[in-house]
Protein backbone atom coordinates (compact mmCIF):
# COMPACT_ATOMS: atom_id res chain seq x y z
CA UNK A 1 0.00 0.00 0.00
CA UNK A 2 2.67 2.43 1.11
CA UNK A 3 4.68 1.64 -2.01
CA UNK A 4 1.78 2.08 -4.36
CA UNK A 5 1.10 5.65 -3.33
CA UNK A 6 4.76 6.57 -3.60
CA UNK A 7 5.10 4.73 -6.86
CA UNK A 8 2.20 6.55 -8.41
CA UNK A 9 3.44 10.03 -7.64
CA UNK A 10 6.94 9.04 -8.70
CA UNK A 11 5.63 7.70 -12.00
CA UNK A 12 3.76 10.92 -12.64
CA UNK A 13 6.93 12.90 -11.89
CA UNK A 14 9.03 10.79 -14.22
CA UNK A 15 6.56 11.16 -17.02
CA UNK A 16 5.97 14.88 -16.58
CA UNK A 17 9.71 15.55 -16.40
CA UNK A 18 10.18 13.44 -19.55
CA UNK A 19 13.11 11.81 -17.79
CA UNK A 20 15.47 11.01 -20.70
CA UNK A 21 16.72 7.72 -19.27
CA UNK A 22 13.16 6.49 -18.78
CA UNK A 23 12.14 7.68 -22.25
CA UNK A 24 15.05 5.82 -23.74
CA UNK A 25 14.35 2.48 -22.11
CA UNK A 26 10.63 2.84 -22.78
CA UNK A 27 11.39 3.48 -26.44
CA UNK A 28 13.66 0.46 -26.61
CA UNK A 29 11.02 -1.72 -24.92
CA UNK A 30 8.36 -0.74 -27.43
CA UNK A 31 10.68 -1.19 -30.37
CA UNK A 32 11.84 -4.64 -29.35
CA UNK A 33 8.35 -5.83 -28.47
CA UNK A 34 6.94 -4.48 -31.72
CA UNK A 35 9.58 -6.17 -33.85
CA UNK A 36 9.20 -9.49 -32.03
CA UNK A 37 5.43 -9.34 -32.39
CA UNK A 38 5.83 -8.63 -36.08
CA UNK A 39 8.08 -11.65 -36.51
CA UNK A 40 5.63 -13.74 -34.51
CA UNK A 41 2.79 -12.52 -36.73
CA UNK A 42 4.62 -13.41 -39.92
CA UNK A 43 5.17 -16.95 -38.68
CA UNK A 44 2.24 -17.48 -36.35
CA UNK A 45 -0.68 -16.21 -38.42
CA UNK A 46 -0.11 -18.50 -41.42
CA UNK A 47 0.73 -21.51 -39.28
CA UNK A 48 -2.21 -20.86 -36.96
CA UNK A 49 -4.46 -20.42 -39.97
CA UNK A 50 -3.42 -23.74 -41.44
CA UNK A 51 -3.82 -25.53 -38.12
CA UNK A 52 -7.23 -23.93 -37.63
CA UNK A 53 -8.62 -24.35 -41.11
CA UNK A 54 -7.31 -27.57 -42.62
CA UNK A 55 -7.88 -31.07 -41.37
CA UNK A 56 -4.89 -33.32 -41.89
CA UNK A 57 -3.43 -36.25 -40.02
CA UNK A 58 -1.40 -35.05 -37.06
CA UNK A 59 -3.21 -31.72 -36.84
CA UNK A 60 -4.45 -32.39 -33.37
CA UNK A 61 -0.99 -33.40 -32.19
CA UNK A 62 0.59 -30.28 -33.65
CA UNK A 63 -2.10 -28.19 -31.99
CA UNK A 64 -1.19 -29.72 -28.63
CA UNK A 65 2.46 -28.90 -29.25
CA UNK A 66 1.61 -25.29 -30.00
CA UNK A 67 -0.51 -25.09 -26.87
CA UNK A 68 2.34 -26.55 -24.86
CA UNK A 69 4.72 -23.93 -26.16
CA UNK A 70 2.50 -21.32 -24.54
CA UNK A 71 4.15 -22.34 -21.29
CA UNK A 72 7.69 -21.75 -22.42
CA UNK A 73 9.29 -19.99 -19.45
CA UNK A 74 11.13 -16.88 -20.48
CA UNK A 75 14.32 -17.89 -18.77
CA UNK A 76 14.32 -21.25 -20.54
CA UNK A 77 13.99 -19.50 -23.87
CA UNK A 78 16.76 -17.21 -22.72
CA UNK A 79 19.00 -20.11 -21.79
CA UNK A 80 18.36 -22.08 -24.95
CA UNK A 81 19.08 -19.16 -27.23
CA UNK A 82 22.01 -18.22 -25.07
CA UNK A 83 23.58 -21.57 -25.71
CA UNK A 84 23.28 -20.98 -29.44
CA UNK A 85 24.62 -17.46 -29.66
CA UNK A 86 27.18 -17.51 -26.88
CA UNK A 87 30.75 -17.29 -28.10
CA UNK A 88 31.07 -21.02 -27.66
CA UNK A 89 27.75 -21.77 -29.34
CA UNK A 90 27.26 -22.58 -33.01
CA UNK A 91 26.26 -19.01 -33.88
CA UNK A 92 28.89 -17.47 -31.64
CA UNK A 93 30.85 -15.79 -34.39
CA UNK A 94 28.01 -13.34 -35.09
CA UNK A 95 28.50 -11.72 -31.71
CA UNK A 96 24.76 -11.49 -31.09
CA UNK A 97 24.79 -12.03 -27.35
CA UNK A 98 24.06 -8.97 -25.22
CA UNK A 99 22.69 -7.01 -28.17
CA UNK A 100 19.12 -5.89 -28.83
CA UNK A 101 18.97 -8.45 -31.65
CA UNK A 102 19.40 -11.23 -29.11
CA UNK A 103 16.43 -9.92 -27.14
CA UNK A 104 14.32 -9.82 -30.29
CA UNK A 105 15.22 -13.42 -31.01
CA UNK A 106 14.15 -14.53 -27.54
CA UNK A 107 10.96 -12.51 -27.55
CA UNK A 108 9.98 -13.70 -31.00
CA UNK A 109 10.31 -17.27 -29.78
CA UNK A 110 8.01 -16.42 -26.88
CA UNK A 111 5.45 -14.57 -28.99
CA UNK A 112 5.16 -17.00 -31.89
CA UNK A 113 3.28 -19.77 -30.05
CA UNK A 114 0.83 -17.19 -28.70
CA UNK A 115 -0.01 -15.80 -32.11
CA UNK A 116 -0.15 -19.30 -33.57
CA UNK A 117 -2.40 -20.79 -30.90
CA UNK A 118 -4.84 -17.89 -30.83
CA UNK A 119 -5.06 -17.63 -34.61
CA UNK A 120 -5.67 -21.35 -34.70
CA UNK A 121 -8.55 -21.08 -32.24
CA UNK A 122 -10.02 -18.07 -33.99
CA UNK A 123 -10.09 -19.59 -37.46
CA UNK A 124 -11.24 -22.94 -36.09
CA UNK A 125 -14.45 -21.28 -34.87
CA UNK A 126 -15.30 -19.92 -38.32
CA UNK A 127 -18.07 -21.42 -40.38
CA UNK A 128 -17.05 -23.44 -43.42
CA UNK A 129 -19.68 -21.48 -45.41
CA UNK A 130 -17.37 -18.54 -45.60
CA UNK A 131 -14.50 -20.54 -46.98
CA UNK A 132 -16.72 -21.99 -49.70
CA UNK A 133 -18.07 -18.54 -50.51
CA UNK A 134 -14.62 -17.04 -50.81
CA UNK A 135 -13.42 -19.83 -53.07
CA UNK A 136 -16.50 -19.60 -55.25
CA UNK A 137 -15.95 -15.88 -55.70
CA UNK A 138 -12.60 -16.72 -57.26
CA UNK A 139 -10.26 -16.28 -54.31
CA UNK A 140 -6.88 -17.96 -54.46
CA UNK A 141 -5.71 -19.91 -51.42
CA UNK A 142 -3.92 -16.86 -50.09
CA UNK A 143 -6.92 -14.62 -50.71
CA UNK A 144 -9.16 -17.10 -48.92
CA UNK A 145 -6.85 -16.97 -45.94
CA UNK A 146 -6.89 -13.19 -46.02
CA UNK A 147 -10.69 -13.06 -46.12
CA UNK A 148 -11.13 -15.57 -43.32
CA UNK A 149 -8.60 -13.77 -41.17
CA UNK A 150 -10.45 -10.55 -41.88
CA UNK A 151 -13.60 -12.27 -40.71
CA UNK A 152 -11.85 -13.35 -37.50
CA UNK A 153 -10.06 -10.06 -37.14
CA UNK A 154 -11.13 -9.33 -33.58
CA UNK A 155 -9.55 -12.53 -32.39
CA UNK A 156 -6.49 -12.30 -34.64
CA UNK A 157 -5.80 -8.72 -33.65
CA UNK A 158 -6.40 -9.84 -30.09
CA UNK A 159 -3.73 -12.47 -30.59
CA UNK A 160 -1.23 -9.82 -31.62
CA UNK A 161 -2.18 -7.63 -28.68
CA UNK A 162 -1.72 -10.57 -26.32
CA UNK A 163 1.65 -11.41 -27.84
CA UNK A 164 2.81 -7.80 -27.64
CA UNK A 165 1.70 -7.63 -24.02
CA UNK A 166 3.51 -10.83 -23.25
CA UNK A 167 6.85 -9.75 -24.68
CA UNK A 168 6.87 -6.17 -23.51
CA UNK A 169 6.21 -7.51 -20.02
CA UNK A 170 8.69 -10.38 -20.06
CA UNK A 171 12.00 -10.06 -18.33
CA UNK A 172 13.76 -13.43 -18.48
CA UNK A 173 14.87 -13.37 -22.10
CA UNK A 174 15.63 -9.64 -22.08
CA UNK A 175 17.79 -10.12 -19.01
CA UNK A 176 19.67 -13.25 -20.10
CA UNK A 177 20.17 -12.32 -23.73
CA UNK A 178 20.38 -8.56 -23.51
CA UNK A 179 22.30 -8.39 -20.25
CA UNK A 180 20.47 -5.31 -18.95
CA UNK A 181 23.35 -3.11 -20.09
CA UNK A 182 22.69 0.52 -19.35
CA UNK A 183 22.05 2.65 -22.40
CA UNK A 184 22.14 -0.33 -24.74
CA UNK A 185 19.95 -3.27 -23.80
CA UNK A 186 18.14 -2.06 -20.70
CA UNK A 187 14.39 -2.38 -21.11
CA UNK A 188 11.65 -1.30 -18.75
CA UNK A 189 11.32 -4.78 -17.33
CA UNK A 190 15.02 -5.39 -16.75
CA UNK A 191 15.19 -1.98 -15.12
CA UNK A 192 12.28 -3.01 -12.90
CA UNK A 193 14.09 -6.21 -11.96
CA UNK A 194 17.18 -4.21 -11.14
CA UNK A 195 15.36 -1.71 -8.96
CA UNK A 196 13.53 -4.53 -7.22
CA UNK A 197 16.77 -6.28 -6.38
CA UNK A 198 18.06 -3.00 -5.00
CA UNK A 199 15.03 -2.87 -2.73
CA UNK A 200 13.82 0.24 -4.56
CA UNK A 201 10.29 -1.11 -4.65
CA UNK A 202 8.55 2.20 -5.15
CA UNK A 203 10.73 3.11 -8.10
CA UNK A 204 10.30 -0.36 -9.57
CA UNK A 205 6.54 0.00 -9.28
CA UNK A 206 6.59 3.41 -10.88
CA UNK A 207 8.45 1.94 -13.84
CA UNK A 208 5.76 -0.74 -13.94
CA UNK A 209 3.10 1.93 -14.13
CA UNK A 210 4.98 3.59 -16.97
CA UNK A 211 5.10 0.25 -18.77
CA UNK A 212 1.35 -0.07 -18.44
CA UNK A 213 0.87 3.46 -19.72
CA UNK A 214 3.07 2.71 -22.69
CA UNK A 215 0.99 -0.40 -23.43
CA UNK A 216 -2.19 1.57 -23.05
CA UNK A 217 -1.08 4.16 -25.56
CA UNK A 218 0.02 1.45 -27.98
CA UNK A 219 -3.38 -0.24 -27.61
CA UNK A 220 -5.24 2.95 -28.25
CA UNK A 221 -3.13 3.64 -31.31
CA UNK A 222 -3.74 0.15 -32.65
CA UNK A 223 -7.45 0.60 -32.04
CA UNK A 224 -7.42 3.91 -33.84
CA UNK A 225 -5.36 2.55 -36.71
CA UNK A 226 -7.78 -0.33 -37.04
CA UNK A 227 -10.71 2.07 -37.36
CA UNK A 228 -8.89 4.05 -40.03
CA UNK A 229 -8.11 0.86 -41.91
CA UNK A 230 -11.75 -0.04 -41.97
CA UNK A 231 -12.65 3.19 -43.55
CA UNK A 232 -10.16 2.47 -46.30
CA UNK A 233 -11.66 -0.87 -47.24
CA UNK A 234 -12.22 -2.39 -50.63
CA UNK A 235 -14.87 -0.03 -51.91
CA UNK A 236 -13.74 3.53 -51.82
CA UNK A 237 -16.94 5.37 -52.39
CA UNK A 238 -18.20 6.33 -48.98
CA UNK A 239 -18.07 2.97 -47.28
CA UNK A 240 -17.68 3.68 -43.59
CA UNK A 241 -19.42 1.30 -41.27
CA UNK A 242 -21.41 3.10 -38.68
CA UNK A 243 -20.62 0.40 -36.21
CA UNK A 244 -18.47 -2.66 -36.02
CA UNK A 245 -19.79 -5.96 -37.23
CA UNK A 246 -20.44 -8.26 -34.33
Amino acid sequence: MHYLAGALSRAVDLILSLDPAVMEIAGLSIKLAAISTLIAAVIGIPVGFILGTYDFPGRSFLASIVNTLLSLPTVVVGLAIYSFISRRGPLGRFGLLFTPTAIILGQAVLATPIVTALTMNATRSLERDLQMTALSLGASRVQVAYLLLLQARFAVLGALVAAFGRVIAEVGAAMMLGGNIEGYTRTITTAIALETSKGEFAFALSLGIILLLVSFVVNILVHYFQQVKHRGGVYHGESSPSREFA
Partner: protein
Amino acid sequence: RLILATTTSTENSGLLGYLLPVFEERFNVRVDVIAVGTGKALELGKNGDADVLLVHDRKSEDAFVADGFGVNRRDVMYNDYIILGPPSDPAGVGKAKSAVEALTIIAEAKAPFVSRGDDSGTHKKEMSIWKEANIEPEAPWYMAAGQGMGPCINIADEQNGYVLSDRGTYISYKNKTELVIIYEGDEIMFNPYGVIAVNPDLHPHVNYEQAMNFVEFLTSSEGRALIESYKMEGEQLFYLYSN
Protein backbone atom coordinates in the same frame (compact mmCIF):
# COMPACT_ATOMS: atom_id res chain seq x y z
CA ARG B 1 9.10 -21.06 11.20
CA LEU B 2 12.01 -18.66 10.92
CA ILE B 3 12.27 -16.52 7.82
CA LEU B 4 15.86 -15.80 6.90
CA ALA B 5 16.47 -13.24 4.19
CA THR B 6 19.91 -13.48 2.75
CA THR B 7 21.86 -12.75 -0.39
CA THR B 8 21.83 -14.98 -3.40
CA SER B 9 25.57 -15.45 -3.18
CA THR B 10 25.32 -16.89 0.33
CA GLU B 11 22.59 -19.27 -0.72
CA ASN B 12 24.41 -20.24 -3.88
CA SER B 13 27.62 -20.91 -2.02
CA GLY B 14 25.92 -23.87 -0.36
CA LEU B 15 26.96 -22.72 3.10
CA LEU B 16 23.39 -22.53 4.33
CA GLY B 17 22.61 -26.03 3.19
CA TYR B 18 25.52 -27.07 5.39
CA LEU B 19 24.67 -24.97 8.45
CA LEU B 20 20.91 -24.90 8.61
CA PRO B 21 20.12 -28.60 9.16
CA VAL B 22 22.22 -28.50 12.30
CA PHE B 23 20.49 -25.37 13.51
CA GLU B 24 17.03 -26.64 12.66
CA GLU B 25 17.64 -29.86 14.54
CA ARG B 26 19.06 -28.10 17.54
CA PHE B 27 16.30 -25.55 17.95
CA ASN B 28 13.48 -27.54 16.42
CA VAL B 29 12.47 -24.92 13.90
CA ARG B 30 12.04 -24.77 10.15
CA VAL B 31 14.13 -22.09 8.47
CA ASP B 32 12.66 -20.63 5.27
CA VAL B 33 15.43 -19.06 3.24
CA ILE B 34 14.53 -16.11 1.01
CA ALA B 35 17.50 -15.50 -1.26
CA VAL B 36 17.52 -11.99 -2.74
CA GLY B 37 19.90 -9.06 -3.15
CA THR B 38 21.23 -7.30 -0.05
CA GLY B 39 19.10 -4.23 -0.76
CA LYS B 40 15.96 -6.25 -1.10
CA ALA B 41 16.80 -8.33 1.99
CA LEU B 42 17.09 -5.15 4.03
CA GLU B 43 13.79 -3.92 2.61
CA LEU B 44 12.11 -7.17 3.63
CA GLY B 45 13.52 -6.67 7.12
CA LYS B 46 12.26 -3.11 7.28
CA ASN B 47 8.75 -4.29 6.45
CA GLY B 48 8.89 -7.10 8.96
CA ASP B 49 8.59 -9.73 6.28
CA ALA B 50 11.71 -11.55 7.46
CA ASP B 51 12.82 -12.42 10.97
CA VAL B 52 16.57 -12.38 10.54
CA LEU B 53 18.99 -11.18 7.87
CA LEU B 54 22.38 -12.44 6.75
CA VAL B 55 23.82 -9.81 4.42
CA HIS B 56 27.02 -8.13 3.36
CA ASP B 57 27.04 -4.38 3.09
CA ARG B 58 28.38 -2.87 6.25
CA LYS B 59 27.27 0.68 5.59
CA SER B 60 23.61 -0.10 4.94
CA GLU B 61 23.60 -2.65 7.73
CA ASP B 62 24.67 0.03 10.17
CA ALA B 63 22.07 2.40 8.82
CA PHE B 64 19.47 -0.34 9.17
CA VAL B 65 20.33 -0.78 12.83
CA ALA B 66 20.67 2.95 13.47
CA ASP B 67 17.20 3.51 12.05
CA GLY B 68 15.87 1.03 14.54
CA PHE B 69 14.85 -1.65 12.07
CA GLY B 70 17.25 -4.24 13.38
CA VAL B 71 18.92 -5.20 16.64
CA ASN B 72 21.90 -7.24 17.70
CA ARG B 73 23.97 -7.01 14.58
CA ARG B 74 26.98 -9.33 14.72
CA ASP B 75 29.89 -9.87 12.39
CA VAL B 76 29.81 -13.44 11.24
CA MET B 77 32.52 -14.04 8.68
CA TYR B 78 34.09 -12.63 5.61
CA ASN B 79 35.31 -13.70 2.27
CA ASP B 80 36.95 -11.54 -0.32
CA TYR B 81 36.54 -10.03 -3.73
CA ILE B 82 38.79 -10.78 -6.65
CA ILE B 83 39.30 -9.28 -10.06
CA LEU B 84 38.68 -11.72 -12.91
CA GLY B 85 39.89 -11.36 -16.44
CA PRO B 86 40.86 -13.33 -19.52
CA PRO B 87 43.88 -15.60 -19.02
CA SER B 88 45.90 -13.55 -21.51
CA ASP B 89 45.28 -10.46 -19.37
CA PRO B 90 45.49 -8.08 -22.37
CA ALA B 91 45.53 -4.93 -20.21
CA GLY B 92 48.27 -6.22 -17.96
CA VAL B 93 46.32 -5.94 -14.76
CA GLY B 94 48.20 -8.80 -13.20
CA LYS B 95 51.23 -6.66 -12.35
CA ALA B 96 49.20 -4.25 -10.19
CA LYS B 97 50.27 -3.80 -6.58
CA SER B 98 46.86 -2.79 -5.25
CA ALA B 99 43.21 -2.99 -6.17
CA VAL B 100 43.22 0.73 -6.93
CA GLU B 101 46.10 0.32 -9.30
CA ALA B 102 44.42 -2.66 -10.95
CA LEU B 103 41.31 -0.65 -11.79
CA THR B 104 43.44 2.31 -12.91
CA ILE B 105 45.23 0.07 -15.41
CA ILE B 106 41.88 -1.18 -16.72
CA ALA B 107 40.56 2.36 -17.09
CA GLU B 108 43.67 3.55 -18.90
CA ALA B 109 43.58 0.62 -21.30
CA LYS B 110 39.86 1.15 -21.74
CA ALA B 111 39.59 -2.60 -21.40
CA PRO B 112 36.03 -3.93 -21.15
CA PHE B 113 34.89 -3.95 -17.55
CA VAL B 114 31.57 -5.31 -16.42
CA SER B 115 30.00 -3.73 -13.37
CA ARG B 116 27.11 -5.18 -11.37
CA GLY B 117 25.55 -1.74 -11.46
CA ASP B 118 22.85 -2.88 -9.06
CA ASP B 119 23.78 -1.26 -5.74
CA SER B 120 24.64 -4.69 -4.37
CA GLY B 121 27.37 -5.14 -1.80
CA THR B 122 29.73 -6.07 -4.59
CA HIS B 123 28.78 -3.05 -6.65
CA LYS B 124 29.22 -0.71 -3.72
CA LYS B 125 32.64 -2.16 -3.08
CA GLU B 126 33.59 -1.62 -6.70
CA MET B 127 32.38 1.98 -6.58
CA SER B 128 34.40 2.68 -3.48
CA ILE B 129 37.56 1.47 -5.20
CA TRP B 130 36.88 3.65 -8.25
CA LYS B 131 36.42 6.55 -5.91
CA GLU B 132 39.67 5.80 -4.21
CA ALA B 133 41.34 5.76 -7.62
CA ASN B 134 39.64 9.02 -8.53
CA ILE B 135 38.25 7.63 -11.74
CA GLU B 136 34.79 8.12 -13.23
CA PRO B 137 34.41 4.99 -15.34
CA GLU B 138 32.53 5.51 -18.59
CA ALA B 139 30.73 3.58 -21.27
CA PRO B 140 31.40 1.95 -23.67
CA TRP B 141 34.30 0.06 -22.12
CA TYR B 142 32.56 0.24 -18.75
CA MET B 143 29.38 -1.79 -18.87
CA ALA B 144 26.85 -1.47 -16.09
CA ALA B 145 25.00 -4.75 -16.44
CA GLY B 146 22.51 -4.49 -13.60
CA GLN B 147 22.45 -8.21 -12.91
CA GLY B 148 23.59 -10.83 -10.45
CA MET B 149 27.17 -11.94 -10.09
CA GLY B 150 26.93 -15.03 -12.25
CA PRO B 151 25.49 -13.26 -15.28
CA CYS B 152 28.11 -10.52 -14.93
CA ILE B 153 30.89 -13.09 -15.03
CA ASN B 154 29.31 -14.50 -18.17
CA ILE B 155 29.10 -11.10 -19.78
CA ALA B 156 32.73 -10.37 -18.98
CA ASP B 157 33.66 -13.73 -20.39
CA GLU B 158 31.76 -13.05 -23.61
CA GLN B 159 33.29 -9.59 -23.94
CA ASN B 160 36.81 -10.72 -23.05
CA GLY B 161 36.76 -8.23 -20.21
CA TYR B 162 37.32 -7.82 -16.51
CA VAL B 163 34.94 -8.04 -13.59
CA LEU B 164 35.02 -7.71 -9.82
CA SER B 165 33.56 -10.83 -8.23
CA ASP B 166 33.16 -12.40 -4.85
CA ARG B 167 35.23 -15.51 -4.42
CA GLY B 168 32.34 -17.82 -3.68
CA THR B 169 30.53 -17.15 -6.94
CA TYR B 170 33.78 -17.44 -8.87
CA ILE B 171 34.50 -20.85 -7.40
CA SER B 172 31.11 -22.12 -8.40
CA TYR B 173 31.60 -20.68 -11.91
CA LYS B 174 35.18 -21.78 -12.28
CA ASN B 175 34.56 -24.57 -14.70
CA LYS B 176 31.90 -22.63 -16.62
CA THR B 177 34.02 -19.66 -17.53
CA GLU B 178 37.38 -19.04 -19.13
CA LEU B 179 38.08 -16.10 -16.83
CA VAL B 180 40.77 -16.51 -14.21
CA ILE B 181 41.77 -14.58 -11.13
CA ILE B 182 43.96 -11.70 -12.28
CA TYR B 183 44.24 -9.85 -9.01
CA GLU B 184 43.47 -10.73 -5.39
CA GLY B 185 44.54 -10.14 -1.83
CA ASP B 186 44.19 -6.40 -1.17
CA GLU B 187 42.61 -5.82 2.21
CA ILE B 188 40.26 -3.26 0.68
CA MET B 189 38.57 -6.18 -1.08
CA PHE B 190 37.45 -7.98 2.06
CA ASN B 191 33.75 -8.78 2.15
CA PRO B 192 32.31 -9.01 5.65
CA TYR B 193 28.99 -10.67 6.42
CA GLY B 194 26.74 -9.64 9.26
CA VAL B 195 23.68 -11.14 10.86
CA ILE B 196 20.87 -8.92 12.15
CA ALA B 197 17.67 -9.74 13.98
CA VAL B 198 14.64 -7.72 12.96
CA ASN B 199 13.52 -5.37 15.71
CA PRO B 200 10.63 -7.02 17.62
CA ASP B 201 9.55 -3.67 19.08
CA LEU B 202 8.77 -2.47 15.57
CA HIS B 203 7.32 -5.76 14.34
CA PRO B 204 5.85 -7.67 17.28
CA HIS B 205 4.96 -10.65 15.09
CA VAL B 206 8.55 -11.56 14.19
CA ASN B 207 10.07 -14.71 15.54
CA TYR B 208 12.57 -12.86 17.66
CA GLU B 209 13.39 -15.77 19.93
CA GLN B 210 14.50 -18.03 17.11
CA ALA B 211 16.16 -15.10 15.37
CA MET B 212 18.36 -14.59 18.40
CA ASN B 213 19.01 -18.30 18.58
CA PHE B 214 20.24 -18.06 15.02
CA VAL B 215 22.43 -15.05 15.73
CA GLU B 216 23.95 -16.81 18.67
CA PHE B 217 24.33 -20.07 16.82
CA LEU B 218 26.32 -18.43 14.03
CA THR B 219 28.63 -16.74 16.47
CA SER B 220 28.94 -19.73 18.81
CA SER B 221 32.01 -21.88 18.70
CA GLU B 222 29.98 -24.60 17.04
CA GLY B 223 28.74 -22.30 14.32
CA ARG B 224 32.19 -20.86 13.79
CA ALA B 225 33.66 -24.31 13.46
CA LEU B 226 31.10 -25.23 10.84
CA ILE B 227 31.76 -22.07 8.82
CA GLU B 228 35.48 -22.54 8.92
CA SER B 229 35.25 -26.16 7.87
CA TYR B 230 32.93 -25.47 4.90
CA LYS B 231 34.65 -26.13 1.63
CA MET B 232 33.50 -25.71 -1.92
CA GLU B 233 35.36 -27.51 -4.66
CA GLY B 234 38.03 -28.14 -2.07
CA GLU B 235 38.54 -24.47 -1.25
CA GLN B 236 37.68 -22.69 1.96
CA LEU B 237 35.11 -20.00 1.21
CA PHE B 238 34.53 -18.07 4.38
CA TYR B 239 36.94 -16.84 7.01
CA LEU B 240 36.31 -15.84 10.59
CA TYR B 241 37.23 -12.73 12.44
CA SER B 242 39.54 -13.62 15.26
CA ASN B 243 37.61 -12.35 18.23
